[in-house]
């Protein structure tokens, strides 16, 4: 969260693409986590982001929405015989499943956030660029962080 607030919030690629790494925290909830817990965590993460970014309600609404769909989405990509506390990682899910899972979650997060931010479709192209660009950049950073974390764990 500190990385997001202090570093990533200062990134405005092409003037309007800002990666939202707070999505990475939503990606990491393990299978079987109570929906109530994921919802409360999602809302809290979004609320903190909103407080530091002066975007009242935008991130909390987006994170709550993502928290709501995280568990059903993870069940779609997790193996059928996966354990109840299955943790979605690069290794456990496999490259393509992890990529798809992360892409969908990030896309939903960015779509809700930027649509609430723009609150109009009059400049829909700019909004679309921000959603797609932010999604791709956030996925890249997520993959990078995931690699770093796993590498450190292996060492």
């Amino acid at each position, binding site marked *: 969260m500190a990385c997001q607030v202090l570093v990533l919030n200062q990134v405005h690629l092409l003037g309007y693409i800002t990666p939202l790494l707070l999505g990475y925290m939503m990606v990491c909830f393990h299978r079987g986590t109570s*929906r*109530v817990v994921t*919802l409360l965590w999602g809302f809290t993460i979004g609320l903190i982001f909103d407080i530091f970014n002066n975007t*009242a*309600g935008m991130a*909390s609404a987006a994170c*709550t929405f993502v928290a*709501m769909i995280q568990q059903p989405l993870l069940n779609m990509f997790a193996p059928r015989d996966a354990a109840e506390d299955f943790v979605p990682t690069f290794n456990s899910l496999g490259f393509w499943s992890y990529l798809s899972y992360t892409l969908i979650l990030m896309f939903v997060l960015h779509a809700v956030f930027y649509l609430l931010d723009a609150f109009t479709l009059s400049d829909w192209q700019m909004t679309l660029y921000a959603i797609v660009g932010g999604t791709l950049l956030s996925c890249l950073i997520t993959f990078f962080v995931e690699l770093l974390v796993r590498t450190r764990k292996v060492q």
Partner: protein
Amino acid sequence: MRALIDLLINGKHWFLFLLLEAVSLFSLFSYNGYQKSVYFTTANDVAGTAYSIISSVTSYLYLQTANQRLEADNQRLYREIAQMKEQMAEAGLDTIHPHGLPTKYDFVNAQIVNATTHKTNNLITINKGEADGIRPEMGVVCSRGVVGVVYLTSKHYSIVLPLINVNSKVSCRLRGSDYFGTLNWHRGSSLCTYATGIPRHADVKKREIVETNGYSDIFPPGLPIGLVADIGDSPDGMSYLLTVKMFADFATMREVSVITNYTKPERRELEQVADSLMKSEDI
């Protein structure tokens, strides 16, 4: 009750989700000026459209009342015009004319409850009768012109002999001239009637207005009846046979008014006495 509790327990994450989203959106619209203004603008548009639709529906529902009010207004205006015409005519004869003349004609508004337009003897039933001051031989008009004459009355209903009845005879004249004739219907179209008795030396043009001449004690002078649609000759060749397209549309008419105080019993009695004297002299 148990089902309700089960629902609340099983769907608690849905309730929590809606609650958290509501809190988020409340924050969004409360603390972000741009989103707040867009929200209120859109809400105003939606509310405006909804109120517009409701207003249209409501005004449609009140259309009948509005129509009746318009009809009453029309009748009042016609009455005022007729009074003014008569006052002007009288003023021409006698320049000393007191102000504040009493109302000469009273109208009773009535609704048509039954009518025929395709028979030889068409009749119209209206929902006002003797209890409302209606008596036989009173004139009936609508907002567009003359309708007919009251034929029979009961306590609460009256039968009107309309212009589209073969037994109907109404004195008429061409507006702007003193040539007069009689309106008589010959079956067929309910839109047209025929005027006879207007001499051939009269200058008659198509689309001239035919109106009441006030010779009978049923209608005051100057009430419009229709337009001259065609000019022909009567069977005897002595006068015109004018086809008159009536202003009143008997097929769609709903509201009429009965002129209740134009009929003058004194005049009628005098004419009846004269008729009886003439008959006795003939004998």
